[in-house]
């Protein structure tokens, strides 16, 4: 119960500020409350179906397929699959860490794991819908088009650098990762 209250502390603080504003500076107070309510209504009309989609994607997205197709010798196909699966994911970036580790342990190459993480962080489908709704289609599309190549590039760059840092004898790009986890 206490943890529950703590989660709402920011909201409760704001309600108090809103009340004080309404009392001391009525114009600012009513602007604050009415713009908050506008945003709240807009989000409540929009978020429930998105979360249902997130849930469905989470249940149906076939993680097994990824594990099969993102191994050390996977080229473009591995990249495409990493991206597609990550876009269907739910949850913040740090929720993607254990998934990426699981992929690495299954033999996924480092570049694909980084691409998976980058996609997970930046272009999930439910998130894109939110972006289109609030920022507009051209904003969302431009960001998407610019982000995909950059994420892929970062994946290969990191793999190159990490691999170059290893002993010449070891060709395993994610040995360090395995030892740590």
């Amino acid at each position, binding site marked *: 119960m206490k943890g529950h209250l703590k989660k*709402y502390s920011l909201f409760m603080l704001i309600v108090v500020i*809103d009340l004080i504003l309404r009392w001391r500076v009525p114009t600012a107070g009513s*602007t604050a409350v009415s713009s*908050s309510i506008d945003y709240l209504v807009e*989000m409540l009309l929009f978020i429930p179906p998105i979360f249902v989609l997130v*849930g469905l994607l989470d249940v149906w997205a076939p993680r097994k397929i990824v594990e099969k197709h993102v191994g050390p010798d996977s080229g473009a196909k591995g990249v495409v699959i990493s991206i597609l699966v990550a876009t269907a994911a739910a949850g*913040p970036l*740090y929720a993607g860490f254990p998934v990426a580790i699981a992929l690495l342990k299954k033999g996924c190459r480092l570049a694909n794991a980084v691409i998976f993480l980058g996609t997970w962080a930046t272009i999930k489908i439910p998130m894109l819908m*939110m972006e289109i709704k609030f920022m507009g289609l051209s904003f969302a599309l431009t960001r998407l088009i610019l982000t995909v190549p950059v994420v892929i590039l970062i994946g290969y760059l990191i793999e190159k650098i990490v691999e170059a840092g290893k002993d010449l004898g070891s060709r395993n790009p994610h040995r360090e990762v395995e030892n740590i986890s």
Partner: protein
Amino acid sequence: MFNVILFIMTLAVLIYSFKKDRQKTRQALKIAYNSFRNILPSMLGIIGLIGLMLALVPRETIEGLFGNNSPAGILIISAAGSVMLIPAFIAFPLAASLLQAGASIMAVSSFITTLLMVGVLTAPMEIQYFGKKFTILRNVFSLAAALGIAVIMGVVLQ
């Protein structure tokens, strides 16, 4: 209109899923409910902050700081994006309200790109999973990429 299409689409997918596998669909709805419950407190908090910002911070202040693509403004808002830990779901309404309050596309883009790609507060967790070198590389590259993308967006979407 967008909402109507979304509702119809979701409903169609949901019915299809339910016909294929009741158990999975039930689990999906549970995930949906839990995600909603998890996000609700921060959502209400951020929405409240948006209201306060629109009411209390004069348009000139936001325009002056983030409206003219000044390097200082972009750096401040990128630092905020890199450090903050708010779900993307709520970040977009916040970004929209910043635009509404007079911030430039470039500034708002850098907020979003850094927020999504750079994680300063989650770095310790990332180090535990992937090691220090990986984490530093990923975050530094991502920061550079985030700024680059934002600058291009600011130019393209004038």
